[in-house]
């Protein structure tokens, strides 16, 4: 394994679960566990520096602001952005909604001429893909419904790979936004970002990347990818719950109208009207998740110290054990690439469908062995429908996942068909 055993850094991994069994945590795709440094950073903030940021004239307010902005700089550096291109949000979902709602607001005239470039209306198109998480699908559906634009999508093949044959038709002169995920939370496939961005840029469409499953697991540089917006979630990056971030190109962020309105985001307020601050402040109305920002800063520090190249390689090895292992079990279908391509260019995910056994029942049997996985549609109903199943059972890895964890998953999964008597 490329990474040393890191379990000692993660207090929760020492606990036992059902029947005193040691915990095998393979649900990191849903939410990751937190290293001690992250928990300590959050607690230290509360015990030493907690104060309202940005507007205090007292010492703790200064310290809190410094910690808060320092965390922003750390997150920015982690993805190759400038500090003022990072907006805090409640989670990745809120970050994606911030873009979609900002465009809806611009289309309704909010933001005036300055925001006119974001206006979308009848005759325009918004393009997504069939592999999207609901968080990067539903906001665009509703934007289309509100503005009269048409929603189109890039389909996927039987392995879940985007079919780019009709890309020129699907992303065309009428396309205003192309929103797609960087890595699938089901198949693990890493998207063909370069081809998609090139096409979007050729037709002048904005690109919105869902970085939820890439930023925690592989090196990501927004400038190298040349995307316009990207959403990420701290809780999947070994960070705290309650915070995520949006990257946005500064010139775009500065003129996108805000959609959550209130204190902090505004410049001059009269009873009649309001002017907005520049980005990122214009999008940060209300008291921010300050302690969480500080802890997210600690999380990217921890990941950086491991090295994202090594993280990627480590998790690919885990993926290989899991994916190749489950592919051997009769009656078990691996969603996503199979055969030669199985464990190449994927993140550490293995979602399976066990013939004749409902995912919930599969998960229950694994749980009985102390193995925590996710069951259901993983917020990707269209993709599961495309695969002809309503749900699946998903194991997903992170930096602390060991080869033993991966083997335990494969072994326990192999017992499932017999338990439910479906292989008689």
């Amino acid at each position, binding site marked *: 394994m490329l990474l040393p055993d890191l379990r000692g850094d993660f207090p929760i991994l020492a606990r036992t679960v*059902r*029947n005193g069994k040691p915990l095998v945590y393979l649900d990191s795709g849903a939410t990751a566990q937190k290293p001690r440094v992250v928990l300590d950073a959050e607690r230290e903030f509360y015990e030493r520096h907690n104060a309202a940021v940005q507007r205090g004239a007292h010492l703790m307010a200064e310290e809190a602001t410094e910690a808060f902005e320092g965390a922003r700089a750390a997150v920015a550096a982690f993805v190759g952005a400038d500090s003022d291109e990072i907006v805090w949000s409640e989670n990745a979902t809120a970050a994606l909604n911030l873009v979609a709602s900002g465009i809806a607001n611009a289309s309704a005239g909010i933001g005036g001429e300055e925001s006119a470039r974001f206006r979308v209306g009848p005759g325009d198109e918004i393009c997504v893909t069939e592999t999207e998480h609901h968080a990067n699908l539903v906001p665009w559906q509703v934007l289309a419904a509100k503005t009269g634009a048409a929603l189109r999508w890039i389909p996927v093949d039987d392995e879940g790979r985007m079919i780019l044959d009709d890309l020129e038709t699907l992303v065309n002169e009428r396309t205003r936004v192309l929103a797609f995920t960087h890595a699938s939370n089901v198949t693990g496939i890493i998207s063909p970002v370069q081809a998609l961005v090139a096409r979007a840029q050729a037709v002048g469409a904005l690109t919105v990347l869902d970085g939820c499953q890439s930023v925690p697991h592989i090196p990501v540089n927004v400038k190298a990818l040349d995307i316009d917006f990207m959403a990420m979630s701290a809780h999947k990056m070994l960070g705290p719950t309650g915070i995520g971030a949006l990257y946005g190109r500064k010139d775009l962020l500065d003129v996108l109208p805000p959609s959550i309105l209130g204190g902090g985001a505004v410049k001059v307020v009269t009873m009649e009207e309001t002017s907005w601050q520049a980005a990122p402040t214009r999008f940060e109305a209300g008291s921010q998740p300050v302690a969480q920002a500080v802890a997210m800063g600690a999380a990217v520090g921890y990941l950086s110290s491991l090295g994202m190249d090594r993280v990627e390689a480590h998790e690919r090895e885990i993926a290989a054990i899991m994916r190749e292992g489950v592919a051997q079990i009769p009656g078990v279908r691996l969603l996503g690439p199979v055969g030669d391509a199985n464990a190449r260019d994927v993140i550490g995910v293995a979602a399976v469908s066990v013939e004749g*056994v*409902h*995912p*919930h*029942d599969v998960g*229950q*049997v694994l749980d*009985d062995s102390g193995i925590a996985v996710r*069951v*259901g*549609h993983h917020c990707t*109903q269209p993709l*599961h429908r495309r695969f002809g199943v*309503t*749900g699946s059972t998903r194991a997903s890895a992170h930096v602390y996942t060991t080869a033993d964890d991966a083997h335990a998953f494969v072994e326990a999964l192999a017992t499932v068909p017999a*338990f*439910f*008597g479906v292989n008689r």
Partner: protein
Amino acid sequence: MSSLEQMYQQVIMDHAREAHGRGLKDPGLIQVGESHQVNTTCGDEIRLRVGLDGDTVASVSWEGQGCSISQASVSVLHELVEGESLETAEKTAEAFRDLMQAKGEALGDDRDDLLDDATAFVGVGKYPARIKCAMLGWMAFKDALIQARKDQS
């Protein structure tokens, strides 16, 4: 018997494999109610139809998919309440709900007789996430009864 085996008792496995009452039936000229329930955790759905003949639950039929717990549960429901008086059916439904809340203990009173095969679901009560699965059909039944009573056809 481990907790897992206690949840997946043979009765449940059998009902799950060969579920009763599956396939929506047209109950004819009686009061009819229908309900569609979705378990949003996993996307499982059940559509259940009830036909009332006076005070009798004359017909209970359903379609849908789900995990073994939800399928077995609606199958047992069909077995228990079809043909019973409204009063007995409602008492059974209430007993089942109570069993789900009992954290893995049998009710231990005369309602165990009422529940019959459904007592096998006792182990589900230890798994909060699965109670929803077991209740799916019963929620649909309760709702369909309300609809049926409103129905004047």
